[in-house]
């Protein structure tokens, strides 16, 4: 190639290459931006992405009123600090109270930290006791400090060992075998404590009863405010506080429950939840 031609090509190419390098950088940023938009769109269409269910606050504090609910990720830390994955700003809750993680086929496994203690369906669990915490399943109640929380799993996560009970059913507490209380199915005769909790293998989403056993009403003295003293030990809370009213009496909560088409005014909307600020 003649030197003059090559010199012209070199002169043009030094600007052309710089232009291409600039375009590459701009295209790269454009690609990052479009990927980010796509990701936000996917998460908007899947609001429950990365979560296994939600925790409904049955009783809390001024900063965490009842009927608040927040999503439960698959893994994280529960505590009163804002940096925790589940923030429960209630008296008796340590900064980092417990670790939790979801295990397929088991449920939400809890690991209390240090000297922290929790109650899972009335069973006290702490690290010092050495006992393994029973995993939380759909409908399980968790007492952390003065907060009483109920776990509601997504319908497709069929990891429950409870049958959904009709109105008026009483929970059966199996004696002495450490099993969790369960509700008899509709039309079923009263079962003894020897029977195992009902399992529903192979149950499809359509066959899962949509009604939850209403968690036992909170005693009239709840919610515990900051002025009130909460039990010195979590074991002071009687187990029958979770018991449902006798058969024949309808749960006032059920009467007040509005049809599915109308949102329950007591529950806070999801958009409000995201705006919650537990700033000190």
């Amino acid at each position, binding site marked *: 190639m003649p030197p003059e031609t090559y010199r012209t*090509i*070199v002169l043009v190419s030094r600007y052309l290459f710089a232009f291409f390098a600039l375009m*590459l*950088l701009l295209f*790269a940023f454009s690609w*990052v931006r479009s990927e980010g938009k796509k990701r936000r769109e996917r998460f908007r269409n*899947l609001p429950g*992405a990365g979560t296994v269910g939600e925790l409904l606050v049955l009783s809390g504090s001024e900063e965490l009123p009842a009927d608040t609910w927040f999503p439960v990720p698959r893994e994280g830390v529960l505590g009163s600090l804002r940096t925790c994955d589940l923030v429960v700003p209630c008296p008796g809750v340590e900064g980092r109270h417990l670790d939790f993680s979801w295990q397929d086929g088991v449920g939400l496994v809890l690991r209390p930290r240090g000297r922290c203690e929790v109650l899972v369906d009335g069973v006290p669990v702490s690290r010092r006791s050495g006992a393994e915490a029973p995993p939380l399943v759909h409908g399980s109640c968790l007492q952390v400090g003065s907060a009483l929380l109920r776990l509601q799993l997504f*319908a497709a996560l069929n990891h429950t060992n409870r049958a959904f009970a009709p109105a008026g059913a009483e929970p059966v507490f199996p004696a002495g075998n450490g099993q969790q209380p369960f509700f008899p199915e509709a039309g079923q005769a009263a079962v003894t404590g020897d029977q195992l909790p009902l399992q529903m293998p192979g149950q499809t989403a359509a066959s899962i009863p949509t009604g939850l056993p209403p968690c036992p009403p909170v005693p009239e003295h709840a919610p515990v405010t900051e002025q009130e003293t909460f039990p010195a030990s979590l074991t002071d809370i009687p187990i029958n506080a979770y018991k449902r009213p006798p058969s024949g009496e309808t749960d006032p909560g059920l009467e007040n429950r509005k049809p599915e088409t109308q949102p329950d005014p007591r529950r806070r909307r999801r958009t409000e939840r995201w705006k919650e600020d537990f700033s000190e």
Partner: protein
Amino acid sequence: MSKSKSSARFRFCGAAVLLAALVLIVPALQAGDQQLYLLAGAVAGALALSLMLLPRLFGLDRLLFSLALYLCVSGIFALLPGEAGTAAAQGLRCLAGLAALLAGATLIRVLSPSLITALISGFLGLLMLSGGLIVPDWPPALAGIALCLLLIAFAVLLSLGNTIPALLLSLAGLGLLLFQGMNLEAVLWSLTFVMVLWACEGNLPTVLMALLLTGLLFLGVSVLREESLFSSPDPTLLPELSAAGLWGQFSDSQTPGSTGSPSLFLALTQRYGLIFSGLTALLSLPMTLRSVSIASVARSRFHAALAMGCTLDFALRMLAGLLSHFGVLPISLLPLPLLTVDAMELASRLFALGLLCGISARNEADLAEDAHLAMLAT
């Protein structure tokens, strides 16, 4: 696939392949060397095929993979118009690095955050780091892969809640680096693990303790070795960069060997100018942004900690490398992460990027599973 997403990817990949072809053809036109023409065709073709096929075949993150591959190929630009063999050798190093990237992407899919993983990876990492103290001719570039293994063990231990063992492991690695005189690697490693510890734990006393122990270790080694941990920067670097100018020199004898340094960034600047090399180095910004995005949406603490560690390591190295080239930091010349002639160094950086690509693939799989669950629930 939406139209906007496919066009953004297509634009970038098309521009990268076109630029690679042009940059490689111009010296071939001048020299009239058949080998250079073959090299131009081979590099452009391999780049195009890799960008199209490999992410789909191995489930890699397309954006991260494309940017990393282009940065590797730009190292070949810097070696032209020297001997075609030199550029071809760099191409082979890039291929070896690509294999390391695929290995990292595959490894992260089979790794589980268990104590066995932490024990094996921690043991291997410490063993590779201590090799320099035992074997005289131990290649120092193996420290890169050793630090990747240590990072895996560190992330596993943090995810299991074993903060103190994680801290002790990272301090052991730091000590080994300092005793071998790899001070810059030690500084980058200490910054990485302290920041990951802070992100995962958030416990101020723990982080302060880590900082204190790190500082004591640096001080102790400095006193024991009776030498300063840092060296004065090379005073000839800035004049060489200035002499290259904004548009480069396009001289016929520009090779890394003639500059006396293994820095491909310097050679790239001298050949194509500060604007071209600066814009090429700035591609690390979208890489870092993408890596941070991958770390932020990771489901498990192990993947999040590991992704954040790899991101921090890459970003800090790029920043330190750029600053060392301009003589700002009191350190010797540090090659940029993917612009190096050292095969082991290139492989270790691409291995870490492979881990990131694998975590991104895992995130996509988790999201697909959530979509499936949502469909079942409706």
